[in-house]
């Protein structure tokens, strides 16, 4: 029971991350290595620039109903800015070039944060009320874990509704699958890509918020680990497949938690080696991903 919650909450983070990467990958075949730095940025947006060890909270003290939109907006804003200034110039460049450009961009964001905030991890208390345990079905579970899972599910539902019900969502899904065809049907490329970046940035901010409330830390490298897992989830989920990304994210989280639980103590530090081994196996048996959209072909 408890393990299930553990797996779900870790999986939620990976799923949200994978979704953010898959959205952008879908519309412009960009593996966005700056995603992790957008996560960190959204958290630091809550603080005043300072190189002291004690975090000077700026927007972090807002009540939650203002705090959450603020963070999401920061993530979306930065992401859109990246697209406007940088990625627009790389439309149609080969994937390796775009990838390295995104990596360089992430590098710039990271060191920009370092310049303002120093490399020392800062401690912040976000939404402290969430650090209390609650009783669910006989298990005492941190409230934050519950909220993480619920929020992820809510985000997933909202996103699904957005993608299914609205015109913009429909255009985005069409563009993710076949960008040129969508344009030939009058779908505006810039708008869709910008929308994808905004959504992806907001998702990154959501992860940042969850991570920061969970760990109580703002670290310029905090987004990196989640992004790597999310990146892997995107690929094993099936390229450009949003449901696949989510499914794979949850599976990776579950694999990680289950292995931590089942492996003997001596093998536990090697947990990640087992997880990555499993990733290789999945890739070999399903190179097209867990959920490959019918009729799509790899365009990388």
């Amino acid at each position, binding site marked *: 029971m408890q393990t299930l919650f553990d797996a779900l909450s870790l999986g939620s983070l990976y799923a949200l991350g994978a979704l953010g990467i898959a959205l952008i990958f879908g519309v412009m075949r960009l593996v966005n290595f700056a995603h992790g730095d957008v996560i960190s940025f959204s958290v630091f947006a809550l603080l005043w620039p300072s190189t002291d060890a004690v975090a000077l909270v700026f927007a972090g003290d807002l009540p939650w109903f203002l705090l959450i939109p603020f963070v999401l907006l920061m993530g979306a804003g930065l992401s859109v800015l990246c697209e406007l200034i940088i990625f627009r110039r790389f439309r149609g460049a080969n994937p390796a070039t775009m990838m390295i450009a995104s990596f360089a961009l992430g590098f710039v964001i990271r060191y920009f944060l370092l310049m303002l905030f120093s490399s020392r991890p800062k401690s912040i208390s976000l939404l402290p009320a969430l650090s209390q345990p609650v009783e669910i079905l006989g298990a005492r579970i941190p409230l934050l874990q519950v909220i993480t899972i619920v929020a992820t599910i809510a985000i997933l539902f909202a996103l699904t509704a957005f993608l299914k019900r*609205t*015109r*913009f969502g*429909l*255009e985005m*899904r*069409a563009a993710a*699958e*076949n960008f*040129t*065809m*969508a*344009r*030939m*049907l*009058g*779908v*505006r*490329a810039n708008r869709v890509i910008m929308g994808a970046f905004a959504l992806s940035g907001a998702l990154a901010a959501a992860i940042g918020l969850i991570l920061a409330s969970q760990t109580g830390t703002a670290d310029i490298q905090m987004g990196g680990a989640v992004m790597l897992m999310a990146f892997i989830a995107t690929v094993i989920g099936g390229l450009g*497949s949003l449901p696949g990304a989510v499914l794979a994210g949850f599976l990776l989280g579950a694999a990680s938690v289950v292995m931590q639980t089942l492996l003997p103590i001596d093998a536990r530090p090697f947990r990640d080696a087992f997880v990555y081994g499993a990733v290789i196996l999945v890739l070999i048996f399903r190179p097209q991903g867990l959920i490959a*959209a*019918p*009729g*799509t072909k790899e365009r990388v």
Partner: protein
Amino acid sequence: MSLLALSNITIRYGRLTAVRNVAFNLIEGEILFITGPNGAGKSSLLRAIAGVTPPSSGRIDFGGQDITGRTPEDIARMGVSMVPEGREVFGSLTIQENLMVGTGMHAREGNWRSRAAAELEAVYETFPILKERRHSQAGLLSGGQQQMLVIGRALMTNPRLIAIDEPSLGLAPNITDQVYERLIALRRHRALTLLIVEQSSTRAQMVGGRMILMRGGEVLLDGDARAMGQSEAMQAAYFGYGDH
């Protein structure tokens, strides 16, 4: 007045020249077949018109406006609807969603669905099979059904010109017949202009209308399809090719 006018179009890919100095006009309401062997540059020409790969030199006008170098979405919004080769359906979307993709450009978010409803009904009327399966994934349709879907999808954008690349490719002859039957009927109904690329000229001769024969990136012949079928030039053009 011509709806579409191409002048001196040349298209290069690196050192390879796919289309050389092609020029022709298309009158509103006309039906034009572009035929010719594989590699003649037909598809390149269509992609240039749709704005996907702009020509290296030359100029394209549509409805009196210069559209050379415009983006595909701008050109689509001006009324050019493209049905590319290979029936590029959105496999993971349902049929109805496929049809709806192209309707967004004429509507605001609020009245989008209601405005598209009439169009949708019209397309379903033309292709009843699409209505029957409207909630299944497009990737699961047969080739003929997909062809109907992409034509229907092109119609949904309310175009002035539909450009179709190889509508008969990979379809059984009787399905092809059906597809053409619908196209002709549509043209009559809606005063559509049709630009159809086919490898073989037989279909053009059956349907009638104007035909352009291309080879090696150049226009060899331009004239009435039925008349051309008998001409010696046509035979020569075809016999020049085909040693492979």
